[in-house]
């Protein structure tokens, strides 16, 4: 919503909120209109860009002096409405609701992954909740680790349904649902099947949507430290998107930490070599170009569809098995990095084993790593795949000012003579085009609201022909594309599917601060500063 633009009269609604008069486009929710006049209404179950569920009831407001309260997150404004968002009665109701949530919530903030970045903690703190009439007693269910990338600690779940909505309404994957009644009401996978066995793409949209520490990445930052202690030949790669998230997480102004600072920081943590993930992404594009040019020569295999991560295959198997034949076994930059590492230290007289750690705002990558039980391929794989959040946490522990570190260049990606890269194909215009599409996918879509924002088309000249490359953001859009592929109506040569609706920059493993900033930019709220 743009505060400064005046909507046309017919579509504009004027109302008063806490005594301030405001004119907003018809259809604006009370919650959004209130933000425009600086009234911040507490919310817990609401998340921008997903349909409201209105179940936490924190956002209730008084309207037109009526005793019936309305949920600001689900109620559109109307002409002449008089809305009150702060009153003694509302304060008490909200405080009671928070107390009710805390009466069934483990008091584990200090050891919780979301400590200091938790929406429940935030409101409980603001409302000054001190003692509860019936303190929570447990017993608490044990965290569920059935995916290798995500941990679901349902003892912390406040049943806001944001994860379900992110997965069902946002992604249209449907790996999560709400089941049972009353005290048993619970967020589960359908039939409690393991996440790994269902359609889950491990995008982490659920973790990114969760206001508390109930669904989170499997935190391997401690494992990274142990790895560094046990090896003096550990190499790392990171991307520009990871750097952006780390900056946001640690509170640096955007753009103030250079890649050179980050290389220095990682070396200070004990990494032996630090390389640019983009170098491996370029290499991956070359391998992909080989596959595509072969597919172009064969009949009936187009488009070549490449998921951003192997987990996309699980989704296609579960939901569109007929489309499996179009799927490319795309090799990821992370895997190439692991290949390279094997080669890099072959025969080198190093006392400690060589290890590879990748950093990307991506949860699906974890399933590619050696640390994941899901990775049974046995081929070269990075030892650990950490998200941007974990990188930031790792650096936070080291507590130095990243900006003060001397800028250090990336270590070069040298393709050695004994490199065992699959075919190690040469650079080509097709590879460059594929890399460009890949980069667009990583950089994400800055203003992705609306269905059109989820698709981008590129035309590539190839041997006198114009090839259509389609870049797809998110599984919801991917479903439509797959359906078009299957009914033959999509005449593309290549389809790149980013599982995350906002690409890697807005990935499920990104710093929550970055995700909040992207959301604000998407909603056009003007000031992208982090609250």
């Amino acid at each position, binding site marked *: 919503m743009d505060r400064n633009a005046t909507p046309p009269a017919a579509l504009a609604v004027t109302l008063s909120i806490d005594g301030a008069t405001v004119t907003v486009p018809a259809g604006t929710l009370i919650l959004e209109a209130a933000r425009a006049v600086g009234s911040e209404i507490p919310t817990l179950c609401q998340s921008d860009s997903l349909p409201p569920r209105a179940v936490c009831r924190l956002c209730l407001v008084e309207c037109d002096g009526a005793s019936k309260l309305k949920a600001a997150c689900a109620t559109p404004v109307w002409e002449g409405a008089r809305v009150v968002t702060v009153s003694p009665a509302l304060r008490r109701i909200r405080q009671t609701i928070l107390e009710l949530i805390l009466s069934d919530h483990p008091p584990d903030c200090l050891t919780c992954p979301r400590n200091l970045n938790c929406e429940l903690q935030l409101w409980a703190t603001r409302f000054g909740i001190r003692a509860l009439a019936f303190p929570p007693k447990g017993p608490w269910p044990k965290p569920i680790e059935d995916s290798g990338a995500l941990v679901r600690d349902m003892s912390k779940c406040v049943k806001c349904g944001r994860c379900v909505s992110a997965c069902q309404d946002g992604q249209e994957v449907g790996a999560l649902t709400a089941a049972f*009644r009353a005290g048993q009401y619970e967020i589960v996978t359908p039939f409690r099947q393991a996440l790994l066995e269902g359609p889950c793409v491990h995008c982490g949209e659920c973790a990114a949507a969760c206001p508390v520490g109930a669904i989170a990445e499997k935190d391997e930052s401690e494992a990274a430290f142990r790895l560094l202690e046990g090896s003096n030949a550990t190499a790392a790669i990171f991307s520009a998107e990871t750097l952006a998230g780390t900056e946001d997480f640690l509170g640096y102004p955007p753009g103030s930490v250079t890649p050179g600072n980050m290389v220095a920081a990682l070396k200070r943590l004990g990494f032996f070599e630090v390389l640019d993930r983009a170098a491996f992404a370029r290499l991956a594009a070359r391998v992909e170009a080989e596959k595509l040019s072969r597919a172009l020569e064969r009949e009936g295999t187009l488009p070549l569809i490449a998921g951003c991560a192997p987990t996309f295959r699980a989704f296609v198997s579960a939901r569109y098995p007929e489309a499996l034949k179009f799927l490319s076994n795309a090799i990821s930059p992370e895997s190439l990095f692991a290949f390279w590492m094997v080669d890099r230290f072959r025969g080198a007289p190093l006392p400690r084993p060589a290890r590879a750690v990748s950093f990307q705002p991506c949860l699906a990558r974890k399933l590619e790593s050696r640390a994941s039980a899901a990775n049974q391929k046995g081929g070269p794989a990075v030892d650990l795949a950490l998200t941007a959040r974990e990188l930031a946490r790792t650096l936070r522990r080291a507590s130095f000012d990243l900006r003060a570190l001397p800028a250090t260049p990336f270590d070069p990606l040298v393709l050695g003579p004994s490199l065992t890269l699959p075919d190690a194909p040469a650079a080509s215009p097709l590879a460059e085009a594929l890399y460009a599409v890949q980069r667009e996918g990583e950089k994400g879509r800055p203003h992705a609201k609306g269905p059109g924002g989820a698709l981008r088309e590129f035309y590539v000249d190839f041997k006198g022909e114009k090839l259509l490359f389609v870049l797809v953001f998110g599984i919801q859009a991917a479903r439509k594309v797959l359906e078009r592929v299957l009914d033959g109506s999509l005449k593309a040569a290549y389809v790149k599917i980013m599982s995350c609706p906002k690409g890697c920059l807005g990935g499920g493993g990104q710093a929550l601060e970055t995700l909040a900033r992207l959301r604000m930019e998407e909603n056009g709220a003007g000031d992208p500063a982090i609250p």
Partner: protein
Amino acid sequence: MALLVSMVLEGAGETDPLSIKDYESLGGFAALRAAFALEPQAIIREITGAKLLGRGGAAYPAGKKWEQLLNIEGSPKYIVCNADEGEPGTFKDRRIMEAVPLRLLEGMIIAGLTFNSPRGFIYVRGEYRRLQRRLAEAIQILRDAGYLGERILGSPFSFEITTISGAGAYVCGENSALLNSAEGLAGRPRIKPPHLAEVGLFLKPTLVNNVESFANIPLVLTMGGEKFLQAGHPQSGGSKLVCLSGHVRAPGVYEVPLGGATLRDIIFSPQLGDGIRDGRELGFFHLGGQSGPLGGPADLDVPYAYYPLRERGLAVGSGAVVALDASVSPVEYLQKVAEFFSRESCGKCVPCREGNKILAKYLQKLQIPGAWTPEDERRLSDLMVAMRRASFCGLGQSATTALASAQKLFPGRFAGASAPAASEA
């Protein structure tokens, strides 16, 4: 006025419930035939004039509900009958479906005609297996006789009725949860607005009325709205089926004219409840199901009708009247009520899911001598306000109704007064 009337239940027990002939001999289907000659507005005018209030519990004026649906664009419009009858102590819809199912169906067909609807659905409580079969039979009989199906009675109007059933959850009686359940979704309430009249079953405009409400429609049309109103209370016409249970000598379903009987008549008259069993005293009574208020001996002379009861803080609700003798502890009774709600909450909103759990704990604590503190008093009151005002649907909003009425009815038993009493001990 007589204490008992025979309007909705006319013919019940005396005629074959599945005989069209028997039903017609009592004037059955005269209303439907008359309705064919009436404009929808005229039909609704009678219902509005009759002051027929919804019999499912919320007492929403049926005429107003029908008027709203009529004014909504969009088709098809669906007719849904709420036969979930989940409110404990309520068993009058069962009686209608058992004894006079054709009256209910006639009411629904008239609704179908009014809104030019192609389909009606009866959402029958999961436990009412036998009734589901009976209704299906009744529907087939009407189809065979030309009252249902293609071109009803030779008119251009076609209408089908289907029975559906959930798995038996109290919350599925809430009309939007009912529609979700009917669609095969989890039986949890929807966000309103949009109202069901606009976005209802399968997202189409939908009318949801209770069994007894539909069964009154033929009466309204045959008697005329004015006479129907006169047969009841000036603010709410017609009769009400009362489901009398508890410690009365003669429990059962009784049809009383609204405003024509008092609670004393209902519980004590030899024609109705015939007093409390085993020579005991009446302790209190619970009206309208678990979501309704408690009343005591001092309330007995209130006429049984929507507005007089409401003025006393009481309610007709579903028509349940549960009389409890003086040996029943109100606190223990309310503990059971609280347990009911904490079991039946659909679980999706915080005030109801968590609130009912905590409410049950407060009621336990009230029974521990010396445990109650002024702090508990304040917090319980905050909790009750939050549940009533902040719950997502009627279930959570009304879960504290019984307790709130009991606090007034038994001052000291539920209030701070119990704290000093305990500290004296």
